[in-house]
């Protein structure tokens, strides 16, 4: 029993003006196939959030399978906004674990720069509640602003107290050549950044980027024969909450993050303290604070405390390493590809191949991919294979 990752690949997150969605996806998929030394898989699951809105392109399974030489395989898109990658990984996990397919390639891809400016802001808004939120002028960033302001109000937290999350992300991203923005942030710049939807600023919100990432899944009992360093998926779960923030029992509780993380930890037989590193969905700093509370690293209202001291406690070899490759904030936010970027980054860590981003001795890493402001949450725990 069990599912393992035997191949992984990704493109840099960039504004890839000269490349199409298919070019990026095929590059990442081909790297993962080559990494696994396979030329065929039984299924292809594509994580993509906005192909219809950004690129006027759906049926990505068909589009990509042909270009990867996988024509006629089972192939289709799994969509849950920015959690699309995470739910595609979950779909692949279920397919392989059940025995319905022996191998599955999961590609997360997003090509956001096919449209720009306010048109892209509108397009991303399709993952909000159309009738209750978007029609009233809500954007994803505006909803994050509403959440963050309420968090600050209820818990008496200042804007500056979130700064460490962004400082840590950019410090880490500066070492990752695949990251979109490798600049470091100076302490103090965070609170002076231009506001997008206050209190969410340019230095709080993750920047859109284009990119694709891929992992190749097989049954764990086959993995040892196929790859020298397979990575086991020891926890896999998806949970949902009300799509509209206004309908949640408590907007400041990421219920789907809590439920999916608890399920993963139970499957893995681990406690939060057993995790060596986390890749959280830091599209906005308030989501990081709320995720840390949901997973069990902080009491309600105190997740922000991990950002203290310019993020010293969440640095790569500190108490709780977060966003070792820069997270969404610095590596970039490749929309529905995000969950697979997190998986590839965790695989590199667990294989000891993370280069300048390496966390010494990492064995268990939790990755959490959030759609909207917590409406769909896919959580996985990846582990260095059994010795």
């Amino acid at each position: 029993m069990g599912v393992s990752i035997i191949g992984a690949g990704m493109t840099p997150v960039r504004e890839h003006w000269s490349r199409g969605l298919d070019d990026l996806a095929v590059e990442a998929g081909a790297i993962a196939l080559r990494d696994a030394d396979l030329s065929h898989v039984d299924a292809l699951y594509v994580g993509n959030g906005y192909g219809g809105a950004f690129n006027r392109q759906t049926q990505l399974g068909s589009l990509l399978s042909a270009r990867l030489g996988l024509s006629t395989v089972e192939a289709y898109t799994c969509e849950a906004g920015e959690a699309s990658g995470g739910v595609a990984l979950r779909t692949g996990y279920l397919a392989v674990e059940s025995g319905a397919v022996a191998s599955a390639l999961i590609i997360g891809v997003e090509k956001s720069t096919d449209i720009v400016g306010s048109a892209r802001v509108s397009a991303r808004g399709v993952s909000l509640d159309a009738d209750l939120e978007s029609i009233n002028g809500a954007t994803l960033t505006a909803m994050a602003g509403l959440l963050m302001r309420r968090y600050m109000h209820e818990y008496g937290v200042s804007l500056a107290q979130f700064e460490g999350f962004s400082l840590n992300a950019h410090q880490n991203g500066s070492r990752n050549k695949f990251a979109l923005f490798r600049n470091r942030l100076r302490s103090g710049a965070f609170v002076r950044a231009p506001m997008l939807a206050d209190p969410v600023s340019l230095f709080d919100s993750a920047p859109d980027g284009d990119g694709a990432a891929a992992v190749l899944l097989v049954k764990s009992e086959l993995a040892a024969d196929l790859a020298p360093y397979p990575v086991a998926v020891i926890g896999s779960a998806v949970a949902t909450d009300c799509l509209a923030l206004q309908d949640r029992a408590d907007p400041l509780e990421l219920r789907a993050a809590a439920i999916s993380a608890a399920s993963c930890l139970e499957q893995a037989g681990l406690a939060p303290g057993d995790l060596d590193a986390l890749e959280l969905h830091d599209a906005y700093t308030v989501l990081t604070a709320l995720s840390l509370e949901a997973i069990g690293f902080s009491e309600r209202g105190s997740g922000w405390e991990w950002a203290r001291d310019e993020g010293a406690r969440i640095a790569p070899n500190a108490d709780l390493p977060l966003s070792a490759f820069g997270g969404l904030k610095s590596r970039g936010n490749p929309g529905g590809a995000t969950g697979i970027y997190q998986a590839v980054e965790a695989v590199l860590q667990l294989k000891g191949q993370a280069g300048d981003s390496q966390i010494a001795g990492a064995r268990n890493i939790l990755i959490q991919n959030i759609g909207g402001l917590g409406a769909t949450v896919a959580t996985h725990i990846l582990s260095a294979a059994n010795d």
Partner: protein
Amino acid sequence: MTLGDMELSVGASRGFDARAVERGTVYSYTLVQEAGAEFEAQAPYYLALVELENGALITAQLTDIAGEVTIGDAVEMVTRKLTTDGARGMIVYGYKFRPAMT
């Protein structure tokens, strides 16, 4: 006829009773600087979560704001133009909230 008398079939199907919800307080708010295409001409504008008197939250723009907005401000629902839809400029009406007059 007030908004509360109207049949809001979409809202009703989502557990939203228009008759109990014309007044409330600001639960949270933000000033939207980076708007989508349909709202770009209005930016910056205030978006809020309003806690209605029946305890429900509703997402809506704030309008007729002269000074500062603060969490807890009393507000009331008004019918306003939200945006125009498509090349023919069909007007989309909906609800916004303004500072309570009474």
